[in-house]
Each structure stands twice: as structure tokens, then as C-alpha cells.
């Protein structure tokens, strides 16, 4: 339990620090590197939440693909990379973001979340594991090997959104190609 807490709070600290780094860094390239760090730490948080498949997807897509794209774009617009300034909405944005953050924290603290311990089920990370009931064993099995269940859900219950997502990706690829094609004059 203590180890999990330690892992969570250190990862949360690094994640928040890296996110602040993305916003405050003057050099856009360094901001992108902080963004990669924050993506990696989020993958670690997914492992803490028993979402190993998502952790791997996070590393492959965010750390592998998206950050490479961002860094390429920064390098291709290189002469302007030291211009990470703010626009004139700094003060109103402060107020708005503070309000939203207060609302989020208030709601997440004051809501009575109905979690497993309220049912007397010992399936949360760090719970002791003796004399499991059938339900506890079932829930533990689900969270110990999530990938086949995600596959089943994606190709059975969520098959329509799944196909829509592939069409969206195809459209995005074609759109990007059209935008970046060399114009014939």
C-alpha cells in the first residue's frame, strides 16, 4: 500500500511539474520534451490503475508518434522556435482556469463516489488477498489481464464506434496529405 502511494504521489508530482514546464518554457522545443515526459508519466499512472494495454498504447502513440510529429513540426518552423509568448488574455484566462479547477476539485472531493470498499469487496490496488469470494476473484481476474476483455468489448459492444474511428483516421490521413501536397502552379 505504502509503495503504491509513494509511486502515485511521485508520479503525480513529476506529471504536474512536466505539464507546468510545457506552459512556462520559452523554448518551444524544450516544451515539447516536457510534454514527452508528461506522456511517459501518464503511462506509468495507467500501469498503477491496472490498465497495461492502455499504458503500452500510450507509449506507442503519444510518446512514439505524436511527439515525433510535434518535434518535426517545430524543427520545420525553426526560426520562430524561441517565441513562446502569451497573448493578451493572460489575466482572464487565469481567473477562468482557477474557477474551473476549483469546481473540479470541489466536485471530486464532495461527491460520494460509490467504490468497491463500500460493497465490502477487496479488489482495489493494495487490498489484502485472502479468502476471495467469487465476485472478488472475478473482478481481480478482469483487472489482472485486461487486454482480451478490451478486445472483446471493442469488436462486439463498441464495434460501430470502432469502425467510425477507422474512418476518422482515414479522413485525417487524406486531409493531411491534401493540405501538404506540393501545389502545381
Amino acid at each position, binding site marked *: 500500500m505504502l509503495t503504491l*502511494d509513494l509511486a*502515485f504521489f511521485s508520479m503525480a508530482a513529476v506529471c*504536474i511539474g512536466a*505539464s507546468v514546464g*510545457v*506552459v512556462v518554457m520559452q523554448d*518551444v522545443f524544450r*516544451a*515539447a520534451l516536457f510534454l514527452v515526459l*508528461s*506522456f511517459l508519466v*501518464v503511462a506509468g*499512472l495507467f500501469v498503477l490503475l*491496472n*490498465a497495461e494495454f*492502455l499504458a503500452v*498504447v*500510450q507509449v506507442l*502513440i*503519444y510518446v512514439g508518434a*505524436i511527439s515525433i510529429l*510535434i518535434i518535426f*513540426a517545430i524543427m*520545420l518552423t525553426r526560426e*520562430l522556435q524561441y517565441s*513562446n509568448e*502569451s497573448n493578451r488574455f*493572460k489575466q482572464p*484566462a487565469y481567473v477562468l*482556469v*482557477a474557477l*474551473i*479547477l476549483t469546481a*473540479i*476539485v470541489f466536485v*471530486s*472531493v464532495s461527491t460520494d*463516489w*460509490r467504490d468497491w470498499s*463500500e*460493497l*465490502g*469487496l477487496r479488489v482495489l*490496488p*493494495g487490498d489484502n488477498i485472502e479468502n476471495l*469470494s467469487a*465476485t472478488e476473484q*472475478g*473482478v481481480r481476474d478482469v*483487472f489482472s489481464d485486461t487486454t482480451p*476483455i*478490451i478486445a472483446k468489448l471493442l469488436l462486439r*459492444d463498441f464495434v460501430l*464506434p470502432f469502425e467510425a*474511428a477507422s474512418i*476518422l*483516421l482515414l479522413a*485525417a490521413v487524406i486531409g493531411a496529405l491534401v*493540405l*501538404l501536397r506540393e501545389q502545381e502552379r
Partner: protein
Amino acid sequence: MNLENFLILSGVIFSIGLYGALTKKHVITVLMCVELMFNAVNIAAVAMSRYIVPRSMAADPSALDTAVAIAISEGSELGETALSTLLTGQIFAVFVITVAAAEIALGLALVMAMYRNREIVDVTKINLMKG
């Protein structure tokens, strides 16, 4: 480490991303901050799916002799379905990641097109269509 911790962390990262997306001039920084917001939403979705009990399992606080609990102990179809609904939050995260990938590909293509035609990466100067 409990659900509140994860939700507050997610809220903090979302707010940082929102602040950056609202105030930054460099268009690539704006896109990066939008990615931060996507990540915050993913953390919240996965934490919810790990900690929150679906209604079918919470019907009776003494739990272990509800229909779902019996179905799970028998290993029947209903039990498997009930258990697989636990991962809906992770499915949402998968779709959010897909949409984020599409968004960043198109967004950066737009940035490159804009830079090539007008040498602009400052969002406050993109005003060609202003009336």
C-alpha cells in the same frame, strides 16, 4: 492513492492545459496543451473505470447474493458481461487516444500549410478570414 487523488491530478493537468491553450501565441504550443487536456481526460476515465462500481453490481450493498454475484460465481454469460462492463472507461480512453492522433495529424498539417504559404506560427496573426 484513491479515486479523489486521481481526479484532482486529472483536474490540475486539465487546468494547466486549458491555461496554455487559451494564452499561448505559438500554434504548436496550443496543440501541445490540447494534448495535455486529452491526457487529463484519459486519466479520469481510466481511474473511474478502476474505482467505480457499476449499478448492476451495487444493487445490494450486501452484494454477494445478488443476481450478478451469482452469475459471476457460476461463470455464466451474464457474469462475464457484467465483469467486462468494468472496462468501459478504458475503451473510452482508447477512442480519445484515436481522436487525439487524428487531431494532431490534421492540426500539424494545417500548421505546416500555414507556415509554407504565409510564414506564420502565431495564432493571433491568423486573421485572413477576418471580416
